[in-house]
């Protein structure tokens, strides 16, 4: 645990050196969500407050669950840079997780004032929900963050088999955009796509907590859905471990 905290602290300090960069990265995420919200508000479809709440929470949950490590992992593998980590008494994934959490903590500091300003501008009101829904929301956000991180890690380690995994990352990106609720809420998708989304992991990596907090789901469905999300979490962890072990068998770093 101490080693993990050290990684988080190092990442935090490293990120704080380049505050301007991080602010711009955070802003980039906000712009996309904001434009999508403006599009919805101009359609005069449904309740504006629903879309405001959905995209407001999307900004927050999207940041907490965000992961961008696949490109760096695939580069580390391609250029043999994971070798030093293999001889360290701490797994490579922990190094990546530390980096992810550290950077997100700094981004969160930039996001909060933006959220407050947007909240005032769009007259955001918190949804009135029971404490159990808030609890389910928090648990679901944590599960989603881990699922998203592991999925990104899995995409990254495909570099053990592929010379260049850029195309795979692109395909992962577009599928995730369509089925995670990042662009449009899954509830407004046509029925076929909604059913398809239920069988893909992307819903559980972002959309589910948003569905919970925006009252799209009845309270009696919360527990079964959290169990499914936990099942997805276990499945991706298992797959990740398996692929990592297989990949390491294949791994030959340059110079070895």
């Amino acid at each position, binding site marked *: 645990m101490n080693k993990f905290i050290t990684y988080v602290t190092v990442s935090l300090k490293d990120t704080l050196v*380049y505050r*301007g*960069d*991080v*602010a*711009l*990265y955070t*802003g*980039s995420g906000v*712009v*996309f969500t904001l*434009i999508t919200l*403006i*599009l*919805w508000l*101009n*359609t*005069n*479809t*449904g309740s504006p407050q629903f879309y405001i709440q959905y995209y407001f929470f999307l900004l927050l949950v999207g940041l907490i669950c965000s992961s961008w490590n696949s490109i760096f992992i695939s580069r580390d593998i391609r250029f043999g840079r994971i070798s030093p980590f293999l001889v360290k008494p701490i797994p490579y994934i922990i190094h990546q997780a530390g980096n992810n959490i550290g950077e997100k903590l700094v981004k969160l500091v930039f996001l909060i004032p933006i959220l407050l300003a947007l909240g005032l501008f769009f007259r955001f009101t918190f949804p009135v929900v029971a404490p159990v829904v808030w609890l389910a929301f928090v648990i679901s956000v944590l599960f989603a963050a881990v699922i998203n991180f592991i999925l990104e890690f899995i995409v990254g380690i495909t570099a053990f088999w*592929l*010379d*260049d*995994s*850029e*195309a*795979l990352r*692109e*395909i992962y990106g*577009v*599928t995730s*955009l*369509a089925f995670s609720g990042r*662009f*449009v809420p899954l509830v*407004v*998708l*046509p029925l076929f796509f909604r059913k398809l989304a239920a069988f893909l992991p992307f819903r559980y990596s972002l959309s589910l907590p948003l569905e919970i907090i925006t009252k799209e789901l009845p309270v009696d469905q919360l527990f079964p859905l959290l169990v499914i999300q936990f099942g997805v979490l276990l499945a991706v962890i298992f797959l990740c471990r398996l692929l990592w072990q297989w990949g390491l068998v294949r791994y030959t770093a340059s110079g070895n």
Partner: protein
Amino acid sequence: MKYLHLLISLFRNNLARDMEYRANFFLMVISQVLWVVVQLALISVFFTSSSTIHGWDIYQLFLLVGMYRCIDGLFHIFFYRNLLDFPEIIRTGDLDGFLTKPAGTLFLASTRYQKLNEVGTTLTGAGVVIFSLFHLHYQLSLFLVGTLFISLLAGLTTVYSVILMFSSLSFFLTRMTALEAFWDMLSKTLRVPLDLITQGNSLANALLLPLLIVVTIPAQIITQKISGLFIFLEIPCALVFFILAVRFFNFSLRHYSSASS
């Protein structure tokens, strides 16, 4: 002529490099087609219970997206990697290599690497433009082809100029990795009708002019939301931005001190 030969040589060199990872190249082309399909599908969701968004119907919006994809694809093919690598080549002093070559520094630094697997973006963009024009019942005319051509050229020049200006800031700043985030923000903004954001406000229009002339104004001209005469605004605006960007680059270059200096 010398520069055309140089560009062709660079093109051959980049194609040979891309073909080393052939599977990735073709998968990238497929993924770009997938991006467009998903993007259009998601846009159509907005129109399930509303026939227009701020006066734009679904095919007009597709036209705008298609035009954006064309510019985005061309920008990625020729300039994206070069301009985004700019901060790094300045920081490491690798720009020295460009300065000592018998060709324009800006030309070499802007076109050295081409991302040819982005051809899928341009082609699918062109496909979406044709698809939209067909559904909007447009006849092929000189005005239409001319407008599209001028718009593409002006849009590409403007995007290049805006990014070049920001990349040139790397001569003064230690690190500018956020250039990628800036591009990301810009590209996400450009693919929607910006009159949604400006809402006809003159100040907002003036502030966002460099972005408006990339796709929104051309799409408005073609869909006859504004007068066709606005096309004559496109060329001088793009030229002004280009001249400003080149001047700023040359000014910044004077502040360059390589890593070994």
